[in-house]
């Protein structure tokens, strides 16, 4: 496959490439969203522990 043929996808580039771009976006969103969710949960857990420790002091 030539570079031009690769990018033009036999005339279907406007259908093929948006699919792969969207797939990349969905995978990236999943990673970002999951790591943000986990980080927020850790922050909340640390805060809860700090409050519990403060209450006992």
């Amino acid at each position, binding site marked *: *496959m030539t570079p031009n043929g690769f990018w033009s996808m036999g*005339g279907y580039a406007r259908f093929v490439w948006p699919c792969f771009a969207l797939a990349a976006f969905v995978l990236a969103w999943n990673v970002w969203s*999951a790591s943000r969710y986990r980080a927020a949960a850790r922050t909340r*857990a640390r805060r809860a522990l700090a409050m519990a420790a403060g209450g006992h002091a």
Partner: protein
Amino acid sequence: MWTWFYKLASPPHVYAAAGALTPWFAVSAAAAIGYGLVGGLVFAPPDYQQGDAFRIIYVHVPSAWMSLFGYTSMAVAGAIALIWRIKIGHAVAAATAPIGASFTVLALVTGSLWGRPMWGTYWAWDPRLTSELILLFLYAGVMSLRSAFEDPARGDRAAALLGIVGLVNVPIIHYSVVWWNSLHQAATVAKFGKPDMVGSMLWPLLSMFLGFMLFHGAVLCMRLQGEVLNRERQAKWVREAITA
């Protein structure tokens, strides 16, 4: 055996296992998706009828499979939590829902982009497309229901029940192309016996499927850690886990 099973499903064990498995899943997923992309976009020959537009299947088919796999695993996890009162099941179900929903959106949009050049339309009220859209609504319903209750335990139970009821849609999606007249093509890969694809097209597709599965595993482990922490933040083991 039940003692071992309950111990395996205990929140501290699940939290630690999810953290240990995440990098393995992530690296394997990157390798499988990389191989699938190169094989599917560069080395696979154009289809004799669909030309290069067929390459959309390398993201469309794995995402459609993942939408069904995600829903099934969410419903099974909910059922396990309801039947055996293993509360980690609710956490797994809650962590799976947004991942499965995102793959369902991807399957619908990529299918629509494939449909325009092949069918002449972005959307048709075809049995396969409509049942897949219903799957997206089911995911949305399960996620909304879980957060609709003030008592999280009631939300978990209601979401698990809806998930189990909605499971009836999964075989409908799969067999819709057999049971009704459908624009959507019949199964070419998931056939018993010989698939209707040559190896140079099939192997990258299977690799993409494996990559999406492993990716699902990596993201599920990350979300599951957050879900477990949210549910167990008052537990003693959490202090050790988050300071480690």
